[in-house]
Protein backbone atom coordinates (compact mmCIF):
# COMPACT_ATOMS: atom_id res chain seq x y z
CA UNK A 1 0.00 0.00 0.00
CA UNK A 2 2.82 2.36 1.00
CA UNK A 3 4.75 1.48 -2.16
CA UNK A 4 1.68 2.07 -4.33
CA UNK A 5 1.10 5.45 -2.70
CA UNK A 6 4.75 6.38 -3.26
CA UNK A 7 4.54 5.31 -6.92
CA UNK A 8 1.37 7.34 -7.38
CA UNK A 9 2.96 10.36 -5.74
CA UNK A 10 5.98 9.94 -8.00
CA UNK A 11 3.81 10.34 -11.09
CA UNK A 12 2.68 13.78 -9.94
CA UNK A 13 4.70 16.91 -10.49
CA UNK A 14 4.84 17.85 -6.82
CA UNK A 15 7.75 15.61 -5.88
CA UNK A 16 9.79 16.82 -8.86
CA UNK A 17 9.48 20.50 -8.06
CA UNK A 18 12.74 22.41 -7.60
CA UNK A 19 13.32 25.83 -6.02
CA UNK A 20 14.48 27.06 -9.45
CA UNK A 21 11.09 26.20 -10.95
CA UNK A 22 9.33 28.22 -8.26
CA UNK A 23 11.62 31.17 -9.00
CA UNK A 24 10.67 30.86 -12.67
CA UNK A 25 6.96 30.82 -11.74
CA UNK A 26 7.54 34.13 -9.98
CA UNK A 27 9.31 35.53 -13.06
CA UNK A 28 6.49 34.29 -15.31
CA UNK A 29 3.86 35.81 -13.03
CA UNK A 30 5.76 39.13 -12.95
CA UNK A 31 5.70 39.24 -16.76
CA UNK A 32 1.98 38.43 -16.80
CA UNK A 33 1.42 41.15 -14.17
CA UNK A 34 3.42 43.71 -16.19
CA UNK A 35 1.48 42.79 -19.33
CA UNK A 36 -1.96 43.05 -17.70
CA UNK A 37 -1.51 45.77 -15.10
CA UNK A 38 1.12 48.00 -16.77
CA UNK A 39 0.33 47.04 -20.38
CA UNK A 40 4.05 46.52 -21.11
CA UNK A 41 4.09 44.84 -24.56
CA UNK A 42 1.11 42.68 -23.47
CA UNK A 43 0.79 40.89 -26.82
CA UNK A 44 4.17 39.26 -26.26
CA UNK A 45 4.85 39.37 -22.52
CA UNK A 46 1.53 37.69 -21.67
CA UNK A 47 2.13 34.50 -23.75
CA UNK A 48 5.85 34.54 -22.84
CA UNK A 49 4.97 34.70 -19.13
CA UNK A 50 2.49 31.84 -19.52
CA UNK A 51 5.02 29.83 -21.50
CA UNK A 52 7.48 30.23 -18.61
CA UNK A 53 4.88 28.87 -16.18
CA UNK A 54 4.11 25.89 -18.41
CA UNK A 55 7.67 24.79 -19.05
CA UNK A 56 8.49 24.98 -15.35
CA UNK A 57 5.71 22.60 -14.36
CA UNK A 58 7.56 19.31 -13.82
CA UNK A 59 6.71 16.29 -16.02
CA UNK A 60 4.51 18.37 -18.33
CA UNK A 61 6.76 17.33 -21.23
CA UNK A 62 5.66 20.33 -23.27
CA UNK A 63 9.21 21.01 -24.46
CA UNK A 64 10.22 17.38 -24.86
CA UNK A 65 11.91 17.05 -28.26
CA UNK A 66 9.74 15.54 -31.02
CA UNK A 67 6.65 15.05 -28.82
CA UNK A 68 6.06 18.19 -26.69
CA UNK A 69 3.43 20.62 -28.00
CA UNK A 70 5.49 23.74 -27.29
CA UNK A 71 8.59 22.06 -28.68
CA UNK A 72 6.69 21.62 -31.98
CA UNK A 73 5.67 25.29 -31.95
CA UNK A 74 9.28 26.22 -31.27
CA UNK A 75 10.87 23.84 -33.74
CA UNK A 76 8.60 24.40 -36.71
CA UNK A 77 7.86 28.06 -36.02
CA UNK A 78 11.08 29.57 -34.75
CA UNK A 79 13.88 27.09 -35.44
CA UNK A 80 12.62 26.75 -39.01
CA UNK A 81 12.59 30.57 -39.21
CA UNK A 82 8.95 30.86 -40.19
CA UNK A 83 7.39 33.04 -37.49
CA UNK A 84 9.80 36.03 -37.31
CA UNK A 85 9.55 36.64 -41.10
CA UNK A 86 5.74 36.39 -40.88
CA UNK A 87 5.78 39.02 -38.13
CA UNK A 88 7.77 41.17 -40.54
CA UNK A 89 5.07 40.69 -43.18
CA UNK A 90 2.63 42.27 -40.75
CA UNK A 91 5.06 45.04 -39.80
CA UNK A 92 5.52 45.85 -43.50
CA UNK A 93 1.76 46.04 -43.99
CA UNK A 94 1.55 48.45 -41.05
CA UNK A 95 4.52 50.65 -41.95
CA UNK A 96 4.29 53.91 -43.84
CA UNK A 97 7.75 54.63 -45.24
CA UNK A 98 6.51 58.05 -46.42
CA UNK A 99 8.23 60.09 -43.65
CA UNK A 100 11.53 58.40 -44.48
CA UNK A 101 11.12 58.95 -48.23
CA UNK A 102 10.22 62.60 -47.59
CA UNK A 103 13.51 63.20 -45.79
CA UNK A 104 15.90 60.45 -46.91
CA UNK A 105 18.97 61.77 -45.08
CA UNK A 106 17.25 60.76 -41.83
CA UNK A 107 17.93 57.17 -42.93
CA UNK A 108 21.43 57.59 -41.57
CA UNK A 109 20.06 58.07 -38.06
CA UNK A 110 18.59 54.57 -38.38
CA UNK A 111 22.10 53.38 -39.20
CA UNK A 112 23.68 55.40 -36.38
CA UNK A 113 21.59 53.62 -33.77
CA UNK A 114 23.03 50.29 -34.94
CA UNK A 115 26.46 51.39 -33.68
CA UNK A 116 25.15 50.59 -30.18
CA UNK A 117 24.50 47.03 -31.34
CA UNK A 118 28.09 46.58 -32.43
CA UNK A 119 29.61 48.28 -29.37
CA UNK A 120 27.59 45.98 -27.09
CA UNK A 121 28.61 42.99 -29.21
CA UNK A 122 32.24 43.93 -28.66
CA UNK A 123 31.74 44.52 -24.92
CA UNK A 124 29.80 41.24 -24.46
CA UNK A 125 32.55 39.27 -26.13
CA UNK A 126 35.16 40.97 -23.94
CA UNK A 127 33.12 39.86 -20.91
CA UNK A 128 33.37 36.20 -21.82
CA UNK A 129 30.40 35.42 -24.07
CA UNK A 130 31.34 33.56 -27.23
CA UNK A 131 31.15 35.48 -30.49
CA UNK A 132 27.71 34.07 -31.48
CA UNK A 133 26.22 34.85 -28.07
CA UNK A 134 27.74 38.35 -28.11
CA UNK A 135 26.13 39.10 -31.49
CA UNK A 136 22.72 37.98 -30.20
CA UNK A 137 23.05 40.10 -27.06
CA UNK A 138 24.13 43.15 -29.07
CA UNK A 139 21.02 42.81 -31.21
CA UNK A 140 18.85 43.73 -28.20
CA UNK A 141 20.07 47.31 -28.77
CA UNK A 142 18.20 47.38 -32.06
CA UNK A 143 14.97 47.22 -30.02
CA UNK A 144 13.47 44.80 -32.51
CA UNK A 145 11.98 41.66 -30.95
CA UNK A 146 11.46 39.52 -34.09
CA UNK A 147 14.96 40.28 -35.38
CA UNK A 148 16.50 39.45 -31.99
CA UNK A 149 14.62 36.14 -32.00
CA UNK A 150 15.60 35.48 -35.62
CA UNK A 151 19.29 35.98 -34.94
CA UNK A 152 19.14 34.05 -31.65
CA UNK A 153 17.60 31.06 -33.45
CA UNK A 154 20.56 31.05 -35.83
CA UNK A 155 23.45 31.97 -33.55
CA UNK A 156 22.60 31.29 -29.90
CA UNK A 157 19.33 29.38 -29.32
CA UNK A 158 20.30 28.84 -25.67
CA UNK A 159 19.97 32.60 -25.03
CA UNK A 160 16.77 33.12 -27.01
CA UNK A 161 14.37 33.39 -24.09
CA UNK A 162 16.46 35.88 -22.13
CA UNK A 163 17.27 37.98 -25.20
CA UNK A 164 13.64 38.06 -26.37
CA UNK A 165 12.30 39.03 -22.94
CA UNK A 166 15.03 41.69 -22.57
CA UNK A 167 14.27 43.10 -26.05
CA UNK A 168 10.51 43.29 -25.49
CA UNK A 169 10.87 44.59 -21.94
CA UNK A 170 13.17 47.42 -22.98
CA UNK A 171 10.94 48.22 -25.96
CA UNK A 172 8.10 48.66 -23.50
CA UNK A 173 10.31 50.87 -21.35
CA UNK A 174 11.35 53.24 -24.15
CA UNK A 175 9.47 56.15 -22.51
CA UNK A 176 11.44 55.57 -19.29
CA UNK A 177 14.89 54.74 -20.68
CA UNK A 178 15.30 57.19 -23.54
CA UNK A 179 14.33 60.68 -22.24
CA UNK A 180 17.17 61.03 -19.66
CA UNK A 181 19.74 60.07 -22.33
CA UNK A 182 18.17 62.52 -24.78
CA UNK A 183 18.29 65.38 -22.26
CA UNK A 184 21.83 64.50 -21.23
CA UNK A 185 23.22 64.53 -24.78
CA UNK A 186 21.42 67.61 -26.14
CA UNK A 187 21.16 71.24 -25.12
CA UNK A 188 17.80 72.97 -24.87
CA UNK A 189 18.70 75.04 -27.95
CA UNK A 190 19.34 71.83 -29.92
CA UNK A 191 16.04 70.34 -28.78
CA UNK A 192 14.30 73.45 -30.08
CA UNK A 193 15.66 73.05 -33.64
CA UNK A 194 12.78 73.05 -36.10
CA UNK A 195 13.01 70.77 -39.08
CA UNK A 196 12.62 72.00 -42.65
CA UNK A 197 9.28 71.22 -44.26
CA UNK A 198 9.50 67.74 -45.85
CA UNK A 199 9.03 67.32 -49.60
CA UNK A 200 5.80 65.71 -50.77
CA UNK A 201 6.11 62.01 -51.60
CA UNK A 202 4.14 60.66 -54.55
CA UNK A 203 2.19 57.43 -54.40
CA UNK A 204 4.41 56.08 -57.18
CA UNK A 205 7.52 56.55 -55.04
CA UNK A 206 5.90 54.77 -52.13
CA UNK A 207 4.95 51.93 -54.46
CA UNK A 208 8.43 51.62 -55.95
CA UNK A 209 10.25 51.74 -52.60
CA UNK A 210 9.51 48.17 -51.40
CA UNK A 211 10.52 46.73 -54.77
CA UNK A 212 13.73 48.72 -55.18
CA UNK A 213 14.83 48.34 -51.56
CA UNK A 214 14.28 44.56 -51.78
CA UNK A 215 16.74 44.43 -54.67
CA UNK A 216 19.28 46.76 -53.05
CA UNK A 217 19.32 45.16 -49.59
CA UNK A 218 19.13 41.49 -50.61
CA UNK A 219 21.80 41.94 -53.29
CA UNK A 220 24.04 43.57 -50.70
CA UNK A 221 23.29 41.28 -47.72
CA UNK A 222 21.66 38.06 -48.92
CA UNK A 223 21.39 36.75 -45.33
CA UNK A 224 18.83 39.45 -44.57
CA UNK A 225 16.52 38.07 -47.29
CA UNK A 226 13.90 36.29 -45.13
CA UNK A 227 13.14 39.39 -43.06
CA UNK A 228 13.52 42.05 -45.76
CA UNK A 229 11.53 40.03 -48.30
CA UNK A 230 8.56 39.70 -45.96
CA UNK A 231 8.81 43.29 -44.69
CA UNK A 232 8.74 44.68 -48.20
CA UNK A 233 6.05 42.27 -49.44
CA UNK A 234 3.82 43.46 -46.59
CA UNK A 235 4.59 47.05 -47.53
CA UNK A 236 3.82 46.34 -51.19
CA UNK A 237 0.43 44.95 -50.10
CA UNK A 238 -0.14 48.25 -48.32
CA UNK A 239 1.04 50.62 -51.03
CA UNK A 240 -0.40 48.79 -54.04
CA UNK A 241 -3.94 49.52 -52.89
CA UNK A 242 -5.29 46.50 -54.79
CA UNK A 243 -4.98 43.74 -52.20
CA UNK A 244 -6.83 45.18 -49.24
CA UNK A 245 -7.78 41.70 -48.04
CA UNK A 246 -4.18 40.51 -48.01
CA UNK A 247 -3.06 43.72 -46.32
CA UNK A 248 -5.78 43.29 -43.72
CA UNK A 249 -4.88 39.64 -43.16
CA UNK A 250 -1.17 40.46 -42.77
CA UNK A 251 -1.95 43.30 -40.36
CA UNK A 252 -4.56 41.50 -38.28
CA UNK A 253 -5.39 37.80 -38.53
CA UNK A 254 -1.96 36.49 -39.51
CA UNK A 255 -0.11 38.87 -37.20
CA UNK A 256 -2.30 37.88 -34.25
CA UNK A 257 -1.94 34.17 -34.90
CA UNK A 258 1.83 34.20 -35.30
CA UNK A 259 2.17 36.42 -32.22
CA UNK A 260 0.58 33.65 -30.15
CA UNK A 261 2.87 31.03 -31.65
CA UNK A 262 5.87 33.29 -31.11
CA UNK A 263 5.33 34.25 -27.47
CA UNK A 264 4.38 30.87 -26.04
CA UNK A 265 7.43 28.86 -27.23
CA UNK A 266 9.80 31.74 -26.44
CA UNK A 267 8.59 31.57 -22.83
CA UNK A 268 8.93 27.81 -22.99
CA UNK A 269 12.66 28.07 -23.74
CA UNK A 270 13.09 29.58 -20.27
CA UNK A 271 13.39 26.47 -18.12
CA UNK A 272 14.89 27.07 -14.68
CA UNK A 273 17.96 24.92 -15.44
CA UNK A 274 18.79 27.01 -18.49
CA UNK A 275 17.64 30.45 -17.38
CA UNK A 276 18.82 30.77 -13.79
CA UNK A 277 22.50 31.15 -14.54
CA UNK A 278 24.53 34.32 -13.95
CA UNK A 279 25.60 34.30 -17.60
CA UNK A 280 22.00 34.38 -18.81
CA UNK A 281 20.75 36.84 -16.20
CA UNK A 282 23.58 39.25 -17.01
CA UNK A 283 22.08 39.56 -20.49
CA UNK A 284 19.45 41.90 -19.02
CA UNK A 285 22.17 44.32 -17.93
CA UNK A 286 24.00 44.08 -21.26
CA UNK A 287 20.70 44.48 -23.13
CA UNK A 288 19.98 47.67 -21.24
CA UNK A 289 23.47 48.94 -22.04
CA UNK A 290 22.89 48.06 -25.72
CA UNK A 291 19.64 49.98 -25.72
CA UNK A 292 21.18 53.04 -24.05
CA UNK A 293 24.15 52.99 -26.44
CA UNK A 294 21.90 52.71 -29.51
CA UNK A 295 19.91 55.72 -28.36
CA UNK A 296 23.10 57.67 -27.64
CA UNK A 297 24.86 56.81 -30.93
CA UNK A 298 21.79 57.89 -32.90
CA UNK A 299 21.78 61.28 -31.14
CA UNK A 300 25.54 61.73 -31.54
CA UNK A 301 25.30 60.94 -35.25
CA UNK A 302 22.56 63.56 -35.67
CA UNK A 303 24.86 66.10 -34.01
CA UNK A 304 27.73 65.08 -36.30
CA UNK A 305 25.50 65.46 -39.35
CA UNK A 306 24.69 68.99 -38.16
CA UNK A 307 28.40 69.86 -38.39
CA UNK A 308 28.42 69.20 -42.12
CA UNK A 309 24.83 69.91 -43.05
CA UNK A 310 23.30 73.26 -44.02
CA UNK A 311 19.78 72.25 -42.94
CA UNK A 312 19.99 71.41 -39.24
CA UNK A 313 18.54 68.20 -37.85
CA UNK A 314 16.98 68.18 -34.41
CA UNK A 315 19.36 65.72 -32.67
CA UNK A 316 16.49 64.22 -30.70
CA UNK A 317 15.53 62.47 -33.93
CA UNK A 318 18.64 60.29 -33.56
CA UNK A 319 16.99 58.56 -30.60
CA UNK A 320 14.23 57.36 -32.94
CA UNK A 321 16.82 55.35 -34.89
CA UNK A 322 16.12 52.35 -32.66
CA UNK A 323 13.36 50.35 -34.26
CA UNK A 324 10.75 50.45 -31.51
CA UNK A 325 8.02 51.72 -33.85
CA UNK A 326 6.25 54.05 -33.14
CA UNK A 327 7.11 54.31 -29.45
CA UNK A 328 10.57 55.85 -29.96
CA UNK A 329 9.14 58.45 -32.38
CA UNK A 330 6.48 59.38 -29.82
CA UNK A 331 9.11 59.81 -27.12
CA UNK A 332 11.15 62.10 -29.40
CA UNK A 333 8.03 64.17 -30.01
CA UNK A 334 7.27 64.38 -26.30
CA UNK A 335 10.79 65.48 -25.32
CA UNK A 336 10.81 68.00 -28.20
CA UNK A 337 7.51 69.50 -27.06
CA UNK A 338 8.96 70.03 -23.59
CA UNK A 339 11.59 72.37 -25.10
CA UNK A 340 9.29 74.10 -27.60
CA UNK A 341 5.56 73.64 -27.39
CA UNK A 342 5.07 74.27 -31.10
CA UNK A 343 7.80 71.98 -32.39
CA UNK A 344 5.97 68.91 -33.69
CA UNK A 345 8.58 66.24 -34.36
CA UNK A 346 6.45 63.11 -34.61
CA UNK A 347 6.30 62.91 -38.43
CA UNK A 348 10.02 63.63 -38.77
CA UNK A 349 10.84 61.07 -36.08
CA UNK A 350 8.94 58.36 -37.95
CA UNK A 351 11.60 58.60 -40.70
CA UNK A 352 14.57 57.37 -38.65
CA UNK A 353 12.22 55.10 -36.71
CA UNK A 354 11.23 53.04 -39.77
CA UNK A 355 14.80 53.33 -41.11
CA UNK A 356 15.86 51.75 -37.81
CA UNK A 357 13.79 48.66 -38.64
CA UNK A 358 15.69 48.27 -41.91
CA UNK A 359 19.01 49.07 -40.20
CA UNK A 360 18.46 46.40 -37.56
CA UNK A 361 17.68 43.79 -40.20
CA UNK A 362 20.82 44.75 -42.12
CA UNK A 363 22.88 44.51 -38.90
CA UNK A 364 21.42 41.06 -38.21
CA UNK A 365 22.11 39.95 -41.77
CA UNK A 366 25.73 41.05 -41.44
CA UNK A 367 26.18 39.12 -38.18
CA UNK A 368 24.74 35.99 -39.81
CA UNK A 369 26.92 36.43 -42.91
CA UNK A 370 30.10 36.92 -40.91
CA UNK A 371 29.53 34.39 -38.15
CA UNK A 372 27.89 31.38 -39.77
CA UNK A 373 29.86 28.98 -41.96
Amino acid at each position, binding site marked *: MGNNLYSLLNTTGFVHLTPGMVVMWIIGLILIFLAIKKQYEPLLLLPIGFGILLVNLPLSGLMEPEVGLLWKFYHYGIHWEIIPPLIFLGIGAFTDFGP*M*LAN*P*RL*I*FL*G*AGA*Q*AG*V*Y*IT*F*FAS*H*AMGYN*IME*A*ATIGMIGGADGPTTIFIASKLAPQLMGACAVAAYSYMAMVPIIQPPIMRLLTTKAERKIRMAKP*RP*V*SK*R*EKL*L*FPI*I*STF*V*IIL*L*IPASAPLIAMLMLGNLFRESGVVERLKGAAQNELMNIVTIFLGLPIGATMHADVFLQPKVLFIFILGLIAFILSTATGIVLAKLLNLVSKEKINPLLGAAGVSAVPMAARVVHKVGIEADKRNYLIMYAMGPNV*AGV*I*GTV*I*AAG*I*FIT*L*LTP
Partner: protein
Amino acid sequence: MSPASVFAQGIISVFFGMTLLYLSIKITAFFVDRFTSKTKGADTDGK
Protein backbone atom coordinates in the same frame (compact mmCIF):
# COMPACT_ATOMS: atom_id res chain seq x y z
CA MET B 1 36.83 35.89 -37.47
CA SER B 2 37.96 38.24 -34.70
CA PRO B 3 35.41 40.40 -32.83
CA ALA B 4 37.27 43.55 -33.89
CA SER B 5 36.91 42.54 -37.51
CA VAL B 6 33.17 41.78 -37.09
CA PHE B 7 32.76 45.13 -35.29
CA ALA B 8 34.46 47.12 -38.05
CA GLN B 9 32.88 45.24 -40.95
CA GLY B 10 29.48 45.42 -39.30
CA ILE B 11 29.44 49.18 -38.82
CA ILE B 12 30.87 49.84 -42.28
CA SER B 13 28.36 47.49 -43.93
CA VAL B 14 25.35 49.01 -42.14
CA PHE B 15 26.34 52.51 -43.26
CA PHE B 16 27.14 51.28 -46.75
CA GLY B 17 23.76 49.54 -46.96
CA MET B 18 21.91 52.61 -45.75
CA THR B 19 23.88 54.80 -48.17
CA LEU B 20 22.82 52.56 -51.06
CA LEU B 21 19.25 52.78 -49.84
CA TYR B 22 19.54 56.57 -49.59
CA LEU B 23 20.89 56.79 -53.13
CA SER B 24 18.19 54.50 -54.48
CA ILE B 25 15.50 56.67 -52.86
CA LYS B 26 17.06 59.82 -54.34
CA ILE B 27 17.39 58.27 -57.80
CA THR B 28 13.82 56.95 -57.68
CA ALA B 29 12.51 60.35 -56.60
CA PHE B 30 14.46 62.01 -59.43
CA PHE B 31 13.05 59.72 -62.13
CA VAL B 32 9.52 59.77 -60.71
CA ASP B 33 9.60 63.59 -60.73
CA ARG B 34 10.89 63.65 -64.31
CA PHE B 35 8.33 61.13 -65.49
CA THR B 36 5.50 62.93 -63.75
CA SER B 37 6.45 66.34 -65.17
CA LYS B 38 6.81 64.85 -68.71
CA THR B 39 3.38 63.35 -68.45
CA LYS B 40 1.96 66.70 -67.35
CA GLY B 41 3.74 68.38 -70.30
CA ALA B 42 2.22 65.94 -72.73
CA ASP B 43 -1.20 66.59 -71.30
CA THR B 44 -0.72 70.31 -71.69
CA ASP B 45 0.52 69.91 -75.27
CA GLY B 46 -2.42 67.68 -76.07
CA LYS B 47 -4.81 70.36 -74.93
